[in-house]
């Protein structure tokens, strides 16, 4: 009788049909995209020589170049900081208006979310090119790029956080005669503050990394120097820049990580 208690697997379950089909489709897609983009594996590996050649030329960094990079590195960090801050400040009201538990009006929420989705589809490099065209070459373009990019990312993280809070305190504040702003200040903010700070730091980390590249498009910061050294084949200078970027990113990531851990 006991044997009858063991449920029978269906054919699909027994032969892992779903897993096998999924794997097959994935391999097919991989092969398809390799063919379509014309990836030439042979070429990929013969070019490795060039890669090692580059590495060997970078093996002797021009250390005296360090003094020159410090200023643009700082500029990069400032760009990231200001951009992230502006983006966050704009994201706060938007995330409140997009949160289901705060805004009962589905139309308002829908419009706001549509705008946010739209902003998030813009790649940061496209934004950089756009802002360089609008405000001209320099770090202002970088700041605006990062601001828009952070705004899109942070507002989504923020409104999703708001939607996970306990609604009890909101009800209590409303029942005590609080207006909407007071409900947000006294019942929402204390529940989301730590997560918000944590997401701010996380976005800042991403922006420091992103802003090193933006210079390539003329949006200021260390990227400008990176591009200059590469196009003038001064790989010894490139090496210094790469090392500096690496150090800065590691320092900022670990500082912000430990801060975020403390916020948990």
């Amino acid at each position: 009788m006991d044997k009858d208690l063991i449920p029978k697997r269906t054919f699909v379950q027994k032969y892992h049909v779903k897993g096998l089909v999924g794997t097959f489709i994935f391999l097919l897609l991989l092969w398809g995209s390799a063919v379509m983009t014309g990836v030439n594996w042979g070429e990929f590996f013969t070019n490795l020589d060039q890669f090692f050649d580059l590495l060997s030329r970078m093996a002797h960094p021009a250390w005296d170049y360090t003094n020159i990079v410090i200023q643009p590195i700082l500029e990069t960090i400032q760009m990231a900081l200001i951009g992230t801050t502006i983006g966050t400040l704009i994201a706060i009201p938007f995330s409140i208006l997009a949160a289901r538990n705060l805004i009962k009006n589905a139309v308002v929420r829908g419009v706001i979310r549509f705008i946010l989705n739209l902003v998030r589809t813009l790649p940061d490099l496209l934004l950089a090119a756009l802002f360089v065209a609008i405000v001209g070459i320099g770090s202002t373009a970088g700041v605006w790029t990062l601001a828009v990019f952070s705004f899109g990312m942070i507002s989504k993280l923020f409104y999703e956080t708001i939607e996970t809070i306990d609604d009890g305190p909101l009800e209590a504040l409303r029942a005590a005669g609080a207006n909407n702003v007071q409900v947000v200040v006294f019942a929402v903010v204390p529940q989301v503050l730590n997560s918000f700070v944590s997401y701010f730091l996380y976005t800042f980390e991403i922006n420091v990394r992103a802003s090193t590249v933006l210079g390539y498009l003329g949006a200021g910061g260390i990227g400008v120097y990176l591009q200059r050294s590469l196009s003038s084949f001064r790989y010894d200078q490139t090496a210094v820049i790469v090392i500096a970027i690496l150090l800065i990113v590691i320092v900022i990531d670990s500082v912000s990580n430990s801060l975020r851990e403390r916020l948990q």
Partner: protein
Amino acid sequence: MSDRPVMIEFDDVQKVYPNGTVGLKDIDLKIYDGEFVAVVGLSGAGKSTLLRSINRMHDVTSGNLKVDGQSIVGYKGKDLRNLRRSIGMIFQDFNLVDRASVRRNVLSGKVGYYSTWKSSLGLFSAEDKQRAINSLKRVNMVEKLYTRVDELSGGQQQRVAIARALMQDPKIMLADEPIASLDPLTTNAVMDDLLSLNKDLGITVLANLHSVPLAMKYADRIIGLRAGQLVYDKPIAEVSEDDFAEIYSESHPVTGGAVHG
């Protein structure tokens, strides 16, 4: 009791939820100033709906509802907030902000009396800061002033919630199953606190309770709901244990409940 002024008056109140569920049906009820009324009934009988219609956390569908002589059914905006700030409410799950200090939670009870910007900047008057301390003293929680709420036990949290409601200087206290999440010992502490607000401060108390013995121990009057209807209403002196079998029975509507008032 009927020599006292009427504090809350339901006049043929109906409540139908948008999905068609009947919350309240043909409610006629007068609650007098200074009464301690226990509301009993099965789960889903409409106890929470009754309480929440008094501070308009729920709107009624038809009928009239007066608080302190004023009809409240049409209140909007500022009028509605002024009504709510004059009525304290405590909840089964306390509804405190866990991550904030006891002090901040208690002070937040007073925001209905402040402008948006003053309260947002935390600019509470010295008088209200003192009031927060006094409210906490009343529920024996003042030594936890700077403790974070998530470090308190359930019973302590409910007492903090009472202190928060006291900040409002309420005429009425609505308690929606205030002790349902508590153990028997803390239950008594919380109920004693409610009783002292009622007896010492003269606050009218309306409490939904699941426990008949507690209702009999603390209330001046017990009302019973069943499927949204008022089926029982007696001063405590006339209440007998046998009455509750009828309120809590699953079938035949009760007909014998004397509706006084």
